[in-house]
């Protein structure tokens, strides 16, 4: 019959109207400043710099624990060139105690950044990751959208909070890397010790004082290697 569809449609909309007052799952509205949609795990907005809490006295000391070594790969790979890095003149010890450069200036212009994540993909030190904060609007037209080192540095715990799976993977990789480095150093120390032990045996027929000096050098090297194997375990704590 003519008009049947219209009446069915009107019944449907009436059901919607009445139902919207009684069942909360019908309403898809998220009323913005009071409620927010939680970003899903792979969300990305702008980069941030990860720091580990290496300073036991002050866990939020980002300067001591920043992973970035100012290799400037991300600056070169960034497509809109929104990263500005200045390498430092001195060196600071990194996660395994090795002295590394650090960025004395690391600015990202977030009005230019296009969130492509290339800087994250190319960083060899897992130092720069994507953040999920989007409420970054400011009325300072000139410097407000140029984030500097301090604003960009966020702790590893924060990284775990926003991207738990990714952070766990990164931590595993980093500790694996450190374990490998440890193993290499201890293997080197053992090999050096073995070589130190062999040389005096073969060089006994040769000049004795030279062999003593060689043994002492090797022994000193083995002792130094053993000492070097210790700090990584200290740093991982």
């Amino acid at each position, binding site marked *: 019959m*003519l008009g049947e569809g*219209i009446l069915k449609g*009107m019944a449907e909309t009436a059901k*919607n109207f009445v*139902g919207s007052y009684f069942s909360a799952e019908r*309403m*898809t*509205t998220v009323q913005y400043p009071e409620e927010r949609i939680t970003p899903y795990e792979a969300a990305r907005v702008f980069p941030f710099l990860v720091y580990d809490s290496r300073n036991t006295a002050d866990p939020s000391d980002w300067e001591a624990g920043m992973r970035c070594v100012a290799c400037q790969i991300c600056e070169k790979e960034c497509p809109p060139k929104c990263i500005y890095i200045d390498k430092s003149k001195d060196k600071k010890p990194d996660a395994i105690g090795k002295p590394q450069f650090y960025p004395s200036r690391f600015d990202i212009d977030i009005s230019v950044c296009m969130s492509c994540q290339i800087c994250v993909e190319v960083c060899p030190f897992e130092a720069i990751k994507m953040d999920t904060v989007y409420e970054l609007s400011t009325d300072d037209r000139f410097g407000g959208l140029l984030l500097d080192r301090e604003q960009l540095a966020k702790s590893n715990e924060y990284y775990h909070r926003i991207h738990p799976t990714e952070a766990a993977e990164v931590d595993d990789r980093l500790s694996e890397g450190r374990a490998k480095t440890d193993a290499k150093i201890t293997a080197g120390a053992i090999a050096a010790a073995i070589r130190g032990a062999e040389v005096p045996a073969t060089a006994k027929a040769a000049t004795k004082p030279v062999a003593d000096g060689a043994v002492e050098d090797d022994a000193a090297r083995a002792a130094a290697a053993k000492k070097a194997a210790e700090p990584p375990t200290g740093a991982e704590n």
Partner: protein
Amino acid sequence: MQGNMDQIFVLLQHWLMGYLPMALQPLAGVVLGVVAIVCVFPALFALTTVFERKGLARIQNRIGPNRVGPFGLLQPIADGIKSLTKEDIVPLSADATVHFLAPVVLVVTVFMGFAVLPMGRNMVLVDLDAGLLFYFAMGASAELSVFMAGWSSRNKYSLMGAMRAVAQMISYEVVLLLSSVTVVMMTGSLSLTKIIEAQNHYTWGLPHWFIFTPWGLAGFVMYAIAATAETNRSPFDLPEGESELVAGYHTEYSGFKFALFFLGEYLAMFSISGLGTTLFLGGWSAPLAWLAWVPSWIWFFSKLMMSIFVFIWMRGTLPRLRQDQLMNFAWKLILPMCLLNLMVAALWRFLGEGWLRWVVCSAILIAAYAGMSLNELRRKQIGPRRYRYAE
């Protein structure tokens, strides 16, 4: 006491008139009535814009505006401030005088239509003998303003939108008039107060509203369809919807003039609903005899607001009709039904009182409706779609 509540506005008017000398009193009375209409209906318009947005939102499973005021009820104030402070852009090649006059003509003619609506017992601004004719005369003049708006913008899309709007309004004007003529036939008068008086009787507590008769129900349905088309409401809002798609007759208007068009459209909706309630729903008479203690103007305005809610409901339910579809609908479907309705109404009168006329008239109308709907559906050949793909 009930009589006083019912006549409170009339008493208020007479009391205010009493402060003036005898010579000026009739003029003062009319001016007070005009002031009342000019204040009440735009306020109702403001409220309706919020209700429309909230109603449509709830129908679409979302919350409407809820930031300004409790439940968003002060939203029209924000909208009003916005439209008053927007820049009034008149295109360089537009015809400035006609561009300016178009919204003015619209609002003036629509306000004139309110002058003959009886909003309560003894609450008509002007009790004209040919009140219905005056109302339709003002409605017809509103079409001219639509055309003026579209033409003066010097924009071919505006012009096309305006021509389509005028064509639609003219076609449905015929339907509107014919469905009202049945009511005039039964009451024998064009005066709206007499039409209400003819409906203000009760049998076994039920009222004699014209909608409760077969020809009245058919007439009311056709009147409602024609009213939605006359005021360019969904599903007939192609002139307006084109503003969203390409352009419409009010595309070159911004700021306050656009607000005036908006106001004119909603006021036209109110006045046409008011006329519909007067003709078919008994105007200010109560639905049941024992409810007559409620003031008459409350009944009128509640029936008016119910019609507005039905308009909003239809808007949320139906998709837009294409121009050729709506013209077909008017001339091929509704107009024959309207003419048949006229004859059925005449038959109703000549068969005299009794059950026979109910049966005969209902049978004729239902048979005609069923026949027409089967005919339409058969011609449509609705079947599964066949797709043609590029080779």
